[in-house]
């Protein structure tokens, strides 16, 4: 900042209407995204005996519970063509993006309120706050991904070139989390009801997504299948399972989910930008 050269002129005036996304500012503050993400990760596992081990334990324990309850007791099977003994890794493949999404929503929905002291004292693009709280889940994702590789070796699941598609579906999950996170975090500034609603929302959302059951279990007409795909996590999980096991290749369901993500993301950005000028006064 000692650089006198960037003596830019800033105009401060009341803003009207829907604001365009200020990409230039976001770029100037890119390091802040990194530092806030890093803080979230660092703080989350401080003073925890197992530390980052929790990132591995959480999906593994969920997998065990799902396998016992849904597979053994209730008889839920993986997609046709996949050996029933593979149910654990079949559910783990869905848990991977689901837990990322769930954690991202839990953190991002309260992110603005938790960082109220920053919002009321210092200027920076407010988008950075939900952005970094979503990004903080990527490290957990990475650890559970290593476990997935281990499970694939253990269950002798074949590694194919389809796996190269995985980053694309991770990106879709990231966008979906960010889209919903933008909406919820901005709404929570005004309506604290949001933070009470999120835990319930997430439980319902998980059962509305093919996490414990295969996509085929939704045995309805094509129209209702596409309605079901309005849930963006349906497409994300479909993509993850396809790149691992080759079930349900991307189709109309994926297209619907991806479009919903895009619509939610863009509308979320605009809603957030519109609301952000009142954050400091409302929070």
């Amino acid at each position, binding site marked *: *900042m*000692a650089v*006198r050269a*960037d*003596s*830019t*002129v*800033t*105009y*401060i*005036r*009341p*803003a009207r209407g829907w604001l365009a996304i200020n990409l230039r500012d976001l770029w100037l*503050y890119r*390091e*802040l995204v*990194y*530092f*806030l993400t*890093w*803080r979230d990760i*660092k*703080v989350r596992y*401080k*003073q925890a005996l197992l530390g980052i081990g929790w990132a591995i334990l959480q999906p593994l324990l969920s997998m065990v519970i799902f396998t016992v309850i849904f597979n053994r007791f209730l008889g839920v099977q993986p997609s046709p063509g996949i050996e029933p003994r593979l149910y654990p890794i079949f559910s783990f493949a869905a848990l991977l993006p689901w837990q990322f999404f769930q954690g991202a929503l839990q953190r991002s929905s309260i992110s603005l309120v938790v960082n109220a*002291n*920053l*919002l*009321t*004292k*210092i*200027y*920076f693009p407010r988008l950075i706050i939900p952005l970094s709280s979503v990004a903080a889940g990527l490290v957990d994702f990475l650890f559970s991904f290593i476990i997935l590789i281990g499970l694939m070796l253990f269950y002798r699941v074949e590694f194919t070139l389809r796996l190269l598609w995985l980053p694309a579906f991770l990106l879709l999950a990231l966008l979906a989390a960010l889209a919903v996170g933008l909406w919820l975090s901005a709404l929570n*500034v*005004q*309506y*604290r*009801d949001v933070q009470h609603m999120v835990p319930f929302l997430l439980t319902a959302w998980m059962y509305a997504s093919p996490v414990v059951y295969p996509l085929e279990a939704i045995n309805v007409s094509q129209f209702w299948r596409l309605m079901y795909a309005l849930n963006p996590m349906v497409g994300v999980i479909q993509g993850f399972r396809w790149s691992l096991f080759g079930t349900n290749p991307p189709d109309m369901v994926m297209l619907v989910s991806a479009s919903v993500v895009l619509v939610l993301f863009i509308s979320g950005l605009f809603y957030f930008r519109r609301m952000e*000028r009142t954050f*400091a*006064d*409302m*929070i």
Partner: protein
Amino acid sequence: MSDIAIRVNQMGKRYRIGQLHGQSYRTLRDSLAGMFSRKEQVNGGHIWALRGVSFEVKQGQVLGVVGRNGAGKSTLLKLLSRVTEPTEGEAEIRGRVGSLLEVGTGFHPELTGRENIYLNGAILGMKRAEIERKFDEIVAFAEIEKFIETPVKRYSSGMYLRLAFAVAAHLEPEILVVDEVLAVGDAEFQRKCLGKMSDVASEGRTVLFVSHNMSAILRLTEETLVIEKGRLALRAPTAQAVDFYLSRGYSQEGQRCWDEDEVPASASPFRPLALRVVNGQGKVVNTVRSIDPLTLEVEYRLGAPIPGLRVGIYLLSTRGEYIFTSFDTDEPQMYERYATRQPGSYISRCTVPANLLNEGRFVVGINASSYRIRRYFQDEQALTFSVDAAGAPGMQWPEQRLGAVRPLLKWEIEAR
């Protein structure tokens, strides 16, 4: 290329009343109810925290801003540092603004000193390379070399503060906005901060300096804005502005009363009502004689029991130097008797003995806090009063005596 760093034109900020006092967020239920009743947004529900303010600051100028609590100083700084947006008017700012609105913003207690330097630096807008370059300097300035790998939650409050200020002070924006950083910390640290501030000013950067410390304002600035009730009351050379502020800012014939809107919501359940200077005859006065004792009384109300509450006064010179601080529960018996003060109305009264203060003008401030727990209310310039030394011992020599106090001491002369 213009040499104006800040140009503010008819700027104003309006708040909904609820936004200033506590209950700022709405619940979904309120909004749904509002949809049907429609009466919600009547005109009376708004308050202008700042209105019609225009001024310019030249590049390299150090401009002071003074005003009572709640006058709109902080709103002005928040607008200029883009934390909040104006309701009307506009401002033009050349160069990057760095603000020291509150030191330590964004510090995380679980992180170490080192980690917090990086985090806080990034929050304040520094680049990582810049923080790395200044890292040693920051640590040295804060004097925390030994504790750099310790979580800051284990720091003493002094260390915490030094570190926070050190990071902020090494920020190098073209325009620096400073709000009351000097109100905290020990004398030694305050001197260091003031030194750093003058360095910044001498480097040719523009500084907007808000403070209640008149001696700091006098020392650091040449021109000063006086803000009163959301309006720019005066812009003048600092000495003149300080005089103006001191003379009309808050002295009301020996008594200062607080209106509802002058007390921040954060003070609750403590509600200050009045501060008075009372002379030996029991009259509220603006001028007392140094040969009479005088009484200072603080009237207040408690909305809820407050454990460990202490209500106290500061006595300051008009240059902002502290003369003494005293609390109503200083004495052990009082401290035990008022371990928890119950809700109700109170007056805390203290007597300043005769023959203590020198002639001149004094400033009284009040503080209501629970030690190490919370500061409910503080106003360091609640009112002023004058002391007249007529008839005081030593007045056989009608000269100006140096010093804020003029105590009558026991002298002995021994002939040997």
